[in-house]
């Protein structure tokens, strides 16, 4: 199913780097009824780094994600992506996004290939007619995640791990410098987890910036450069993984249940 040669692809094109690639500064976000959903949240991601966003459901993690994506407007504070607003960075095609599996309608009549091509839409003309280069990049992205054989499958006919890889291929095809992944390890098999970690590391080495939100504490420790602990609707701690990932800190975020993961 997954061939050894998937890793033997050419390296990703090197990203340009000057200044931080993603900066969240003292952001406050409110729900429509006025209550604060996120308060005074700050983080700074450098080029060529992977950051893990850790926190319980309802901690403000997904609000921070949505704010970075530009879906929520902060009351105060700023989000800067590659030196501009996140909306501008999106229009330049620089921000790719891998959704949580729960957010996708798996019965939708689209194939894996359709999904990957959607990653190229920003590079096509208004009628979204793919050029030769778009097709090549889409094929290459499918190959990198080992999904070429499943190209024509309707997305609902895939296993959990294959579904995730199809959407990862779409994000790769987009060729942005910043990639956001919402729960990339939710419901995936070991092979897929390996593929995801390997690809994200390759992206990082090519100077890209990766932000993942996850519950998977083991994977965070093994490959995230920085960690942001989210609790009580704010960024509790942010910094290099080895400094932040202490039993004490994890206790503050998760309570007793998960603190052993850091030891």
């Amino acid at each position, binding site marked *: 199913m997954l061939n050894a040669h998937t890793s033997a692809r050419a390296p990703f094109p090197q990203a340009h780097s000057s200044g931080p690639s993603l900066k969240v500064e003292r952001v406050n976000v409110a729900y*429509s*009824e006025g209550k604060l959903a996120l308060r005074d949240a700050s983080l700074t991601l450098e080029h060529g780094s992977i950051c893990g966003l850790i926190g319980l459901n309802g901690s403000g993690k997904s609000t921070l994600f949505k704010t970075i*994506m*530009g*879906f929520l407007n902060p009351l105060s504070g700023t989000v800067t992506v590659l030196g501009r607003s996140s*909306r501008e960075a*999106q*229009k*330049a*095609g620089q*921000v*790719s*996004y891998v*959704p949580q599996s729960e*957010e*996708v*309608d798996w019965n*939708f*009549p*689209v*194939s894996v290939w*359709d999904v990957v091509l*959607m*990653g190229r*839409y*920003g590079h096509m003309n*208004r*009628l*979204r007619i793919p050029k030769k280069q778009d097709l090549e990049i889409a094929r290459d992205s499918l190959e990198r995640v080992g999904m070429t054989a499943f190209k024509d499958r*309707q997305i*609902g006919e895939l296993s959990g791990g294959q579904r995730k890889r199809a959407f990862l291929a*779409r994000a790769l095809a*987009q060729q942005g410098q910043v990639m956001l992944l919402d729960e990339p390890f939710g419901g995936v098999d070991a092979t897929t987890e390996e593929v995801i970690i390997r690809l994200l590391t390759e992206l990082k080495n090519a100077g890209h910036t990766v932000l993942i939100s996850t519950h998977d504490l083991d994977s965070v420790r093994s490959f995230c450069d920085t960690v942001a602990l989210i609790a009580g609707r704010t960024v509790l701690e942010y910094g290099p993984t080895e400094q932040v990932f202490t039993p004490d800190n994890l206790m503050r975020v998760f309570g007793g249940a998960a603190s052993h993961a850091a030891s």
Partner: protein
Amino acid sequence: MDIAQFFQQAIAPFTYGFMVKATLVSALTGAICAVLSCYVILKGWSLMGDAVSHSVLPGVVIAYLVGLPFTVGAFAFGLLSVVSIGYIKSRSRVKEDTVIGVVFTTLFALGLVMISKVSSEVHLSHILFGDVLGISDGDVLQTVIVGTLTLTGVLMFRKDLLLFCFDPTHARSIGLNTTFLYYALLTVLALTIVTALQTVGIILVVAMLVTPGATAYLLTDKFSKMLVIAAASSVFCGVVGTYISYFLDGATGGCIVVLQGILFMLAFFFAPKHGMLAKSRERRKSQLEDVLERGNLPSSAGGMGND
């Protein structure tokens, strides 16, 4: 009755100009509605379609009163309902389906009051249930123009619209304006409803905007095929429904919609992959395989439940 007589009777409807016109309008309307229905059912906008179609009533009455083309009035009120729903939803705690319910019933009721008080010229039943057999040349022209424009627009931007239905987050993340796409899709929805008014009327328009797409959705996993199947089934129902209504001397819109419902039921039971029979066959097959497997492994029979 011999064969010659039978054929004479069978083609009799098409010796009348009004029947030819009605058949063509029904077919065109069917095609446009079918294309849009694919988006409506994937986006989950059936109620929205029902709402917009009911809301156009006051617009139609006003257009007749002041002598404007009915499409103008209907379209204006279709848009008004869409904008009011969006506005109220984003500025109150009331849920969307409730807002839709309030807005469209209010506008529809307003239309009813206007008809009963203001005008005797407008035939309520023609607006509510369509009157394709009595369609005027001017109305045919309006339908053709609006219909062709709508169809061209939707087909040209079908990929963006599909992406918007499938994954608005991704659409936004590649820089597309999803608010614009939201209103663009609602605008073509309103335009489509306007084209279908003459054929099936306000009450049944929603069937044209839902059923062909739903039937096609049961028959294929490819969106491009879904568009083709929906359009083919809808054109078929438009033509055959109009034809049957001539012999029944019954409501044309009703005949078309009943036929669409029948096609949907056929797909529901007999669709090769997503039909009920196929699914129960699949279930039986996997049960059988289960039993066979168990037969081969008698020692593990007790632990099968854990698999």
